């Protein structure tokens, strides 16, 4: 079936390699464009995969690790280029940078009209060339995109000669998405939006090679082959750092191998803690988890577990999935319908706010998917909360003037009380102003949405809440 599809779409020979696919996740936190990829966002973002050497004859196939992320304003791209011979000389804006060690991204925002594409070519010393190859562009052969920010390892040098120390170089790029508004379906993109693009690498003196992420097969030749662009989809999720399929496989291995001490499905066991809990002593990173499982934890009952490497990786993915926030996991349900439930039937805006709309006493939910796990979101909606969290304890005050205030307690002590009222106003009272004050324990948040909503509505609402978050600069 797959082959048939390619025959139809590319009209190419049967040996054509399939186009590549990639999910661009939201950046969970701010990315600083400084030519270093040390942000957690970059670390957790999956690489696009190996580049293909389409026209290879001889020499070293030096690989490129490329990643992409996005937020409401920018598309972020990074290249980590393995390279033992780095050279670049072109300093002139829109100069022929592809003669130097150079990286490129060609972006087609409209998959139905992929021949409309935009190019960004950057050499190792930070000179950029841009073109707007679209059917509407009537300007000069080059193009001035708005607000592009980037840094390269040798940014700003007058020239970069090859050196014995050469090992790798990096490009970090932020492109404001508004540059693509004429060709993109939605701006900013919506969850699931489909674009086409390719990432390329070329140039240098010694061992000059040309490689691309999505393969370019005959009869196509050269990087300017939009039909060879890979498929990318924008996701409202942030990268989780684990694969959900591996996590499910890991659950089964865990339930067989670890439940002598830990509980089933990562719950607390008789002799070992719950693995999804937020305890400060828990191992956090993949490396720490690997070490704990492989070698045991000294000074505790945790033994070294003789698991095969693949199983070990799957168990790690499972443990990471237990700790994932809602935005990092697949959540069934319809976002748009969930938003409707949130706005209307659920009456959520009576107390909660989201991106500047709504009530104040329940707190802002604009980032809730990135702060809570799906399980916590579900229990918040469906379970009673006999003790309100700090800052949300309901309180009723009668002032000396007879004014009645119902709201949540922001702070208090023996001398003063700070109440955020149901009227969305702050009431700041000293002891002398209060005739009577009644504290209530139970949270005002109803835990009954499994009864007041249909199962489908609840799932849609969960889907909507799960996708609230990530970087929103």
């Amino acid at each position, binding site marked *: 079936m797959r082959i048939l599809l390619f025959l139809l779409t590319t009209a190419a020979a049967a040996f054509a390699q399939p186009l590549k696919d990639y999910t661009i996740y939201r950046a969970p936190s701010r990315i600083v464009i400084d030519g270093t990829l040390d942000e957690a966002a970059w670390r957790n973002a999956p690489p696009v995969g190996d580049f293909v050497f389409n026209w290879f004859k001889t020499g070293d196939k030096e690989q490129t690790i490329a990643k992409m992320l996005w937020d409401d304003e920018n598309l972020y791209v990074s290249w980590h280029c393995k390279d033992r011979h780095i050279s670049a000389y072109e300093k002139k804006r829109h100069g022929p940078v592809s003669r130097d060690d150079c990286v490129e991204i060609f972006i087609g925002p409209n998959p139905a009209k992929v021949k409309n594409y935009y190019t960004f070519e950057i050499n190792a010393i930070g000179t950029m060339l841009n073109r707007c190859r679209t059917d509407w562009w009537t300007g000069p052969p080059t193009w001035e995109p708005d607000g592009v920010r980037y840094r390269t390892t040798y940014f700003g040098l007058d020239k970069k000669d090859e050196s014995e120390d050469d090992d790798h170089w990096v490009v970090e790029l932020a492109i404001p998405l508004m540059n693509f508004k004429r060709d993109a379906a939605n701006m900013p993109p919506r969850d699931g939006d489909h674009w086409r693009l390719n990432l390329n690498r070329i140039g240098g003196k010694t061992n000059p090679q040309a490689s691309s992420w999505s393969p370019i097969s005959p009869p196509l030749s050269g990087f300017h082959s939009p039909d060879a662009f890979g498929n990318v989809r924008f996701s409202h999720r942030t990268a989780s750092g684990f694969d959900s399929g591996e996590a499910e496989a890991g659950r089964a291995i865990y339930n067989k191998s670890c439940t002598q001490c830990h509980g089933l499905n990562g719950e607390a066991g008789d*002799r070992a803690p719950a693995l999804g809990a937020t305890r400060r002593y828990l191992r956090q990173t993949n490396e720490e988890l690997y070490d704990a499982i492989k070698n045991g934890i000294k*000074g505790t*009952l945790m033994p070294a577990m003789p698991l095969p490497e693949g199983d070990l990786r799957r168990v790690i993915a499972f443990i990471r999935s237990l700790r994932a926030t809602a935005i990092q996991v697949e959540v069934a349900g319809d976002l748009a319908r969930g938003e409707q439930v949130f706005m209307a039937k659920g009456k959520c805006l009576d107390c909660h706010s989201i991106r500047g709309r709504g009530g104040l006493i329940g707190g802002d939910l604009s980032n809730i998917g990135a702060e809570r796990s799906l399980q916590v979101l579900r229990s918040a909606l469906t379970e009673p909360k006999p003790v309100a969290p700090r800052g949300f304890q309901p309180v009723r005050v009668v002032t000396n003037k007879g004014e009645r205030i119902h709201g949540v307690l922001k702070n208090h*002590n*023996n001398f003063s009380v700070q109440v955020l009222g149901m009227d969305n106003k702050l009431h700041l009272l000293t002891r002398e102003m209060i005739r009577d004050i009644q504290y209530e324990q139970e949270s005002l948040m109803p835990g009954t949405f499994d009864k007041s909503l249909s199962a489908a509505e609840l799932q849609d609402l969960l889907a909507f809440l799960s996708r609230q978050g990530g970087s929103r600069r």
Partner: protein
Amino acid sequence: MRLLPVLFAVPALAQVTYQDLLKADPKDWLHYSGQYHSQRHSTLKLVNTANVSKLVPKWMYNIAGARRMESVPIVTGGVMYVSHPNEVYALDARTGRLIWDYHRQPALAKGPNRGVGVYGNRVYMGTPDAHLIALDARTGSLLWESKIAEASEGYWSPVAPLVIKDKVIIGIAPGDHGLNGFLDAYDANTGERLWRWHAIPKPGEPGNETWAGDSWKHGGGDTWLTGSYDPELNLIYWGIGNPAPDFDGDVRKGDNLYTECMVALDGNTGKLKWYFQFTPWDVHDWDAVEIPVLVDAPFKGKPRKLLVQANRNGYYYVLDRVTGEFLHGTPFIKNLNWATGLTAKGRPIRNEKVIPSFQGTKTCPATSGATNWMSPAYSPDTGWFYMVAQEGCGINTKSSDTFRPGGFPFMGTGYIESPEEPWQMYVRALDLTTGKLMWEYKQLNSRRYGAGLLSTAGGLIFAGDDQGFLTALNARTGKDLWHFNTGQPISTQPVSYLMDGKQYVTVINGSNVVTFGLFE
């Protein structure tokens, strides 16, 4: 340098003599707990119940980079000495202006520091790298340093030194790392170590039989809070910390002497005169380091030399400080589930179900303690003992643990706040000899422990709290008469002193030294 006193217009820096330390003139604040008997009662009464509403801030001094300071200032000769780990600040007590500051290098990052000791022309401080150092009180120059223990093994000293005669007494921390505690005496002039008393007896010594197997080797029992001194009896009273691993008692069956004890040591030799153990085989990290308060008072009609302590385990104890005899004990908190009472000898009758478990055991009081390092006070005017209590419970868990040299936690796991019994702080007044509750003041919304008390002859109890408030309470009724929001949580206790015929009250909050006086 000779001009310094003139330039700063402060009284000439008089040498502090042993007679001064004995007398503890209320114009100064010479000891961590005010006086050798640790009553924390200032006989100054220029600030009193009638005029405390006129108390206003006079000056503030910021210790850059500090947070949640636990230091108690020492005031003598018009100079206030404030410590922070690796640092000492000498301030003009009238204006809060800096005279000198000392910064130890390299500065190991370990805190807190609870204060300095003074004697002669010297200021003494324990350090994060486990040294006792002596500074020149006039200049802050380092005079000598004596290594107490190996910092690389994990030892350090947050303790405010206690100076008796010509000796400096200092302890170490922390037992939670499985390092065995001791108490040291150093020559106040030369820094030479004179004696060391080991809190964990070695094989062949009395008490070692209270440790199963080799468990004594990493038994803990540290000495991290300053004790008291009776000059007539020449006895040092010092509370000893918890056994290690804190929560896993399975590996150290036995009473675990002398952890969780009050010990009385001979001032000259450091020999143990008597001990009283509050919590044998403690499994809740209830260090017995709380300040021992020495009071001479009639007990059941007979004049006695008493030692009283509100212990972290929730009981208030009255002991005879000559012999260590248990006279009386009663809970000072309402929520106490780990024991059902005390025997005639003062030994707890335990609830065997309240032991840390893998799943977690509800334990009342919590491990943070029914009380902790926050100082109590005693007012001879009311005859009442004032203390800060924490009501609430914890969930205590245990797991096996292995000692690692180098200062790593050796806890056998830990505790969290019980959701059903959240923590709440109170100031409580107890009758000295019966422990009966005379009044209580709820520090609404204060749940974290740390801020202690000062009693004054003005009929006042000054109390800090977690909300950053310094509050003056009527010592007889517990009614709040004055308060000030210092802006950061308070984790230490206020002091009082006199200058130019004016009474001042000082408290350190997170990072500021804040001094109050009457509005004029």
